């Protein structure tokens, strides 16, 4: 740069430092990003607001009674008690079935399986399974899990006369549905554990099992819990497989067998109730549908909140 008098060079520097005007493209881009955020949030807000407003009369008029009442064909007495129980039971069994199997599969694929074509083929197909429509899993449940459940409960409780269309069959079906999600997220969490940690473990004389159990899994827990959150939400919200298996959305007797009946007898779940009530021609069920949606959202958010709290507890800052 040419240097003239000190004053002249000062002017030159000031000119180069001066703002070259507004970056309109940048402004437009950030404005567009903001619009996307607002749009996404607005859609959710409108949906939630609508169901809350429509369902509110049910909560104000009936309150806790609505939450505990059984299914009924009369709008005035129908409630979601059996749905909450069914959904929580299903979620519980999905957690104890799918999570351990999913984590073990992920551990095997990431830590134990040799890196060869077979392993890669399996890993790719697990990803494909995660994309299979849930209706297909419903058919799998109807074709396999329902008859198997029927046969087993026929052996254990022959007097129950169960059809196999039960919480047990639904839980197994939904476990199969969420299993790929658990495997994929767990495998990613395990892969994200730095190799240096494994080396350090082997370096002090730990065996593969000790490294996996003592170092890799604890470090991967936050990521694994993320997969758990996703799978619980999915299991709580899935409707199609339940309908195909044969969920009830009209009155059914809870019977007098307690836990046995609720596991092997007829069952229902919140999303199925929403579906059943929404397709009910009786206008009185509109408010009920909205109220059931609110309960479903609340249960899902609650389950997620618990999992997120757990995840944050185990979070590791590298």
């Amino acid at each position, binding site marked *: 740069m040419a240097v003239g008098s000190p004053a002249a060079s000062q002017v030159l520097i000031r000119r180069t430092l001066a703002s070259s005007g507004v970056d309109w493209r940048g402004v437009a881009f950030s404005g567009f990003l903001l619009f996307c955020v607002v749009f996404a949030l607005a859609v959710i807000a409108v949906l939630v607001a609508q169901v809350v407003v429509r369902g509110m009369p049910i909560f104000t008029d009936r309150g806790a009674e609505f939450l505990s009442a059984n299914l009924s064909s009369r709008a005035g007495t129908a409630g979601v008690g059996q749905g909450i129980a069914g959904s929580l039971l299903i979620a519980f069994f999905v957690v104890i079935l799918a999570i351990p199997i999913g984590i073990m599969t992920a551990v095997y694929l990431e830590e134990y399986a040799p890196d060869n074509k077979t392993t890669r083929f399996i890993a790719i197909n697990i990803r494909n399974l995660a994309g299979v429509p849930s209706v297909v899993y419903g058919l799998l449940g109807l074709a396999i899990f329902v008859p198997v459940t029927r046969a087993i409960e026929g052996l254990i409780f022959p007097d129950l006369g169960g059809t196999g269309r039960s919480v047990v069959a639904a839980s197994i079906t939904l476990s199969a549905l969420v299993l790929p999600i658990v495997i994929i997220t767990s495998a990613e969490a395990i892969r994200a554990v730095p190799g*240096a*940690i494994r*080396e350090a473990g082997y370096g*002090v*004389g730990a*065996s593969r099992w000790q490294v996996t159990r*003592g170092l890799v899994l*604890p470090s991967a827990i936050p990521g694994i819990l993320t997969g758990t959150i996703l799978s619980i939400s999915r299991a709580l919200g899935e409707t199609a497989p339940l309908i195909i298996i044969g969920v009830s959305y009209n009155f059914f007797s809870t019977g007098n067998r307690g836990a046995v009946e609720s596991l092997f007898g007829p069952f229902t779940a919140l999303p199925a109730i929403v579906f059943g009530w929404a397709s009910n021609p009786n206008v009185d069920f509109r408010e009920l549908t909205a109220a059931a949606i609110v309960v479903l959202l609340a249960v899902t958010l609650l389950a997620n909140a618990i999992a997120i709290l757990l995840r944050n507890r185990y979070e590791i800052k*590298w």
Partner: protein
Amino acid sequence: MDEAASETASPAAPQINIKVDAGSAVRSTVTSEGASEPPAEPIVEFRDLHFYYDSFRAVKDINIAIEPQKITALIGPSGCGKSTLLRTINRMNDLIPGTRVEGEIRYHQANLYERSVDPVEVRRRIGMVFQKPNPFPKSIYDNVAFGPRVIGYKGNMDELVEHCLRRAALWDDVKDKLKQSGLALSGGQQQRLCIARAIATEPDVILMDEPCSALDPRSTLQIEELMAELKRNFTIIIVTHNMQQAARASDTTVFMTMGDDRAGYVVEQGETVGIFTNPRNQLTEDYVSGRFG
């Protein structure tokens, strides 16, 4: 090319039979260049060792002996196989698929690559400190206790942890925060924690793979002081890129380079003072004087 050190070392005072654990005490009285005590029985000995990544021979014709209770530095240009060679000693390379070893490494006369040898057992006796400090994402206490726990240590764990942290010159820094994460420490402290972790299983050899390359000069000096302290009980083999570090901190230096086939080999092994002031081989002289590498 290279000859086993035990054969090339000076034959002075052959009568004195130095016991392994008395070696360092006697050695410290010997200072003058060239004159050295008679060779102790090597603790680690390479015999015609070749190392392969699949079909690529990364290291070849290794015939060196590591003396107990000394600090042996492995130096040489990047990519000459120093770290690979170091990792053959505790069979760390076994974890990499497709690697293969030919020849023998003898540890207390036993071949580490015999079929019956369990690499896990090898690593319990030959500890390792890595290039980047890699404490476990656990508390300081659990970092040290992890090794003893996996080998089923039955004694007083609190005492062992304190003992190891003291030996790693870390106790005073961390005694009030043993429950805190090891990852919250500074880089130099983390590396000393890794050293405490490595000595907790009571190995007799400690491998250090460029332990100071991620540390500032002050922490580096602390680690070097610590090494000088630790060699009373441990044999230390250190890979370093830093020639001043090799000159300052080691007793014996092994200079490696790579041949035209890109396989690393040992050019020269000898007392550090000799390697740096009076190398026998032109390649060594070029390297230590900074003309190459």
